[in-house]
């Protein structure tokens, strides 16, 4: 367990156990947005990709833009974390953790965009069974998988317990 001084407890620990009214309202709004998104995705799955408003010549729309956007966000996380580690800035630690978390989670969101964009997402494994390495989509799969493995390894190291010092890497 973490040891926190009494004067810090009110600021750091107490908010984890109590929630204000504003928090619940924000949560409700965000859940409504999420529910709307889930409803729309179910519509798209059952009726077809026509629900997205794409057509000819707009074969790829916001989904692909989002994919690139989130890959970019993910790279930003890596960059910030790398620069702060290389320069050895001592105040860096909380920022580095946040950046590493962003790297891993933005990548998951980005990859989901491609799966959402597919006409037959249930055939995703065909890309591995019958994959054609010449296709840029397979490059995406290879590079994003490697990048994701690297980033979660890094992230899990940052948030695990250091065996030597018995302290959480998060605070060392």
């Amino acid at each position, binding site marked *: 367990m973490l040891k926190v001084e009494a004067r810090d407890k009110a600021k750091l620990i107490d908010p984890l156990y109590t929630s204000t009214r504003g928090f619940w309202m924000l949560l409700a709004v965000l859940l409504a947005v999420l529910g709307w998104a889930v409803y729309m995705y179910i519509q798209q799955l059952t*009726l*077809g*990709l*026509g629900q997205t*408003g*794409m*057509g*000819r*010549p*707009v*074969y*790829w729309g916001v989904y692909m833009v989002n994919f690139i956007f989130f890959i970019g966000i993910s790279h930003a996380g890596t960059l910030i974390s790398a620069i702060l580690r290389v320069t050895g800035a001592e105040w860096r630690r909380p920022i580095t953790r946040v950046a590493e978390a962003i790297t891993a989670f933005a990548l998951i969101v980005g990859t989901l965009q*491609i799966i959402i*964009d*597919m*006409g*037959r*997402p249930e*055939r*995703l494994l*065909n*890309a591995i*069974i*019958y*994959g*054609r390495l*010449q*296709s*840029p*989509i*397979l490059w995406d*799969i290879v590079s994003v998988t490697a990048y994701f493995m690297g980033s979660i390894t890094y992230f899990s190291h940052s948030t695990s317990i250091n065996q030597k010092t018995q302290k959480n890497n998060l605070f060392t």
Partner: protein
Amino acid sequence: MTRWSMVIDLEKCVACQGCSVACRMENNTPVIEPEQAELGRSIRWNDVFPMPVNPTEETGEYPTVRTEYMTRPCMHCENPPCVKVCPVQATFKDEEGLVRQNYDRCIGCRFCTVACPYGVRYFNWYKPEWEEGMEQYHNPDKIESGGVSEGPAVRPKGVVEKCTYCVHRLHKARARAEAEERDFRADEYVPACVQTCTGKARFFGDLDDPESTVSTLSTSSRAFHLLEDVGTHPKTTYLGEG
């Protein structure tokens, strides 16, 4: 080795759109509502365009006005960009140069649709639908076996489809020749659009046979290909007007 090829003589084309209709009937292409067509979701394996495509441009002044049309099936490129970008090898060039599409393997990523410079690949944005009762008039021909579904087989939603030069007709002609225990001749196989062409403007045959009609016509001084500079080496050849 055979290399199937088509020659379209624009001088003889009367723009009746018979090829388009024959293709629809032969390949069970779904019909869609006008609102959907406005979004560019209509599926025409064989399209007929007025030239220039933009109708606001005028060609000549009255009374010397000209109208030109161009019909466009798949180019069946020697170097097809759609095949290279497909992540699951659902689209492939077979040993006779036909660029085919396996609906059972397609994951619907639409990369081929983006890659094709001719825009001949069509995505099924919704489940294909026909007017009441039309289903019983579907062409029953199809190429189907485990994990393979091609040709006029009714497409599920979310896959890409394209002109195959009526590859099921080739399979049928081969099977017939085999059943009658004789050699298959190249002139036994023609796509539906070639068979129906009112002005007899379309020719079909083996490009590797120097005696064939398509070989002779493609050496004509009028012969040209669409977007020759992009390096796709189309096998559909046009004969220009005049």
